[in-house]
């Protein structure tokens, strides 16, 4: 019973939890509460905010312009999550079924980006995707090769290569977000697949199912909790993504976080920015609530 003592000994419990609790209250709950209060106020001068209890900020947030940006942010985040899932699932499977010798190295490969600053990674990606970047150079080489083959078989060569616009558009934002968020998807998927009893896969093969059918009917359903976790852990940060659309997006690819940033900085409209922030937070709450409800369902039968 010794390991339960800390639960019964209230003083120990308090001593252990107090610093964390204080930290959370001081640096999370209170600032959030201030922002929440701001969202019911209005600007009364350059540095003054009048907390009048108005709902105008929320009303303004439901204007079509902002709803459109919210909608687009959701669409981009959903697309990013879907691509991460499609790309990440085979990666997670490969790591799970890799030999003992290779697995730690493959996992390291997935984790490595976490140890590099996001800004550095984003700029690195921009260098690759730029007009003179390696992506364009590679495409140019392919183009040249295709052109050469065409002349070889007596056809007209292809027109001169025009560098493709791979940056500062919606493609760049989605690409960049997938690049940043892929590890978030792969790790929970790997955790779920690693727990999967291998003999279930073998039993399916033994009963005549091929590999594809085994994946669709045994592996995917049993990895569902990991898939849900991966989707949430990818979708939520992707929804609030700020840096990637800011650096890699064009004028038409701003996401809601960029709009919020503008309210706090350029527009100096803190109350409206606060309202937008809280709408985003509420949306995330709803997503998390949906997920936890879903998790309870299978236990009911």
């Amino acid at each position, binding site marked *: 019973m010794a390991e339960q003592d800390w639960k019964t000994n209230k003083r120990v419990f308090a001593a252990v939890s107090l610093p964390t609790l204080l930290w959370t209250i001081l640096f999370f709950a209170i600032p959030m509460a201030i922002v929440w209060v701001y969202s019911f106020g209005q600007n009364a001068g350059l540095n003054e905010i009048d907390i009048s209890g108005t709902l105008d900020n929320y009303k303004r947030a439901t204007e079509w312009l902002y709803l459109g940006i919210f909608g687009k942010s959701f669409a981009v985040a959903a697309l990013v999550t879907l691509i991460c899932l499609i790309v990440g699932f085979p990666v997670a499977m490969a790591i799970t079924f890799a030999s003992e010798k290779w697995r730690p190295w493959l996992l390291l490969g997935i984790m490595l980006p976490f140890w590099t600053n996001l800004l550095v990674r984003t700029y690195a990606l921009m260098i690759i995707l730029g007009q003179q970047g390696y992506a364009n150079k590679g495409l140019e080489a392919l183009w040249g090769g295709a052109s050469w083959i065409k002349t070889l078989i007596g056809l007209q060569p292809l027109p001169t290569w025009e560098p493709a616009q791979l940056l500062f558009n919606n493609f760049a934002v989605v690409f960049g977000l997938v690049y940043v968020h892929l590890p978030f998807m792969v790790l929970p998927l790997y955790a779920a697949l690693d727990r999967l*009893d291998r*003999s279930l896969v*073998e*039993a399916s093969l*033994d*009963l*005549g199912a091929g590999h594809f059918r085994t994946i669709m009917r*045994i592996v995917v359903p*049993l990895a569902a909790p990991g898939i849900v976790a991966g989707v949430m852990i990818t979708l939520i940060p992707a929804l609030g993504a700020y840096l990637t659309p800011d650096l890699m997006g064009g004028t038409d690819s701003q996401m809601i976080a960029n709009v919020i940033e503008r309210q706090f900085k350029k527009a100096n409209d803190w109350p409206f920015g606060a309202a937008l922030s809280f709408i985003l937070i509420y949306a995330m709450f709803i997503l998390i609530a949906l997920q936890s409800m879903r998790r309870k369902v299978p236990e009911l039968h």
Partner: protein
Amino acid sequence: MTDAPKKPIIQIQNVTKRFGKVAAVDNVSLDILAGEFFVLLGPSGCGKTTLLRMIAGFELPTEGTILIDGQDMAGIPPNKRPVNMVFQSYAVFPHMSVADNVAYGLKIAGVRGGEVKDRVAEALELVKLGGFEDRMPDQMSGGQRQRVALARSLIMRPKVLLLDEPLSALDAKLRAQMQFELADLQDQVGITFVTVTHDQDEALSMASRIAVINKGDVSQLATPSDLYEYPANRFVADFVGSVNIFEGKLTLDEPDKAAVDCAGLGKVYLNHGVTGPHGADVWVALRPEKIYLHVPGEGKAVRAAAQDAPEGYNFARGKIKGMSYLGDITLFEIELESGARIRVSRPNLSRHDQEDFTWDDKVSMHWRADSPVVLLS
């Protein structure tokens, strides 16, 4: 055996499986006959499961050939082999009902509609799970889940059913019951069963033939009673059942009799030849239940009645150093005059038999001339 010679359904020919440098299965050749209940018996890590998994197709032999029903299995994946496997963990799909589990293979094979339902009901009836169609696996006991796994494999009507340690996860009572049920089931469906186990009781009670595997090699292949009564070597004698083994020298070897002089046990007489070189180092194996125990006084009379060896042979004296009462039998550990120890079991034929002897009693022992087994390796 009055049956007509059966044809082999599985032929394992010079099969070796290496994991790195270690040979898990080392040049094994054996035939498994159609319709038999074949058991691969051996300690953990002896390669028996690897052998089973090679038959199923989950492991590929490094060398050698496996034929199922005359067809070479090289390059044929598990899902195309005419065998099905019951896994040690049962591997019942946790997200599917019992009916969906059992129907899984049939649906993949393209069977549709009413036939699926009929065959699922039939298979569940066979394993005594009729009416459990809508249960989920997590609502079932281990024994029931195993029956689901059995039904799921049997519904495929495989040529061979492979069972990996089928009873290891069950409690003792259920295990004894399932031993009989599995044997019955095999009789009923007529499918060849190949079972892997490390439990000799399980093997002896269910098998028609047993291959004892040791360090990747077949130590002996025999019927259960031959394996027990005529073990081929010390490993088999020791692994199957309980046994006393004494080292000795062969002093007499004729077609109808033989004698071994054991430093530990004394002079041992056998009423058959052993075809070993005279003076060779051999081992004598003597099962605890084949030794008669009596108090020194009455020993002579008992011996006179049952003795079939010359005077001075197949007889030993000692002192009881340990006793364990097991209900049906009492197990004695006796220190012989030579200082060696021997185990003797004695059936408790009447309610008070266990009171006949106690610690430190001086006792004498004798055994029949057909009881000891002489082992050359």
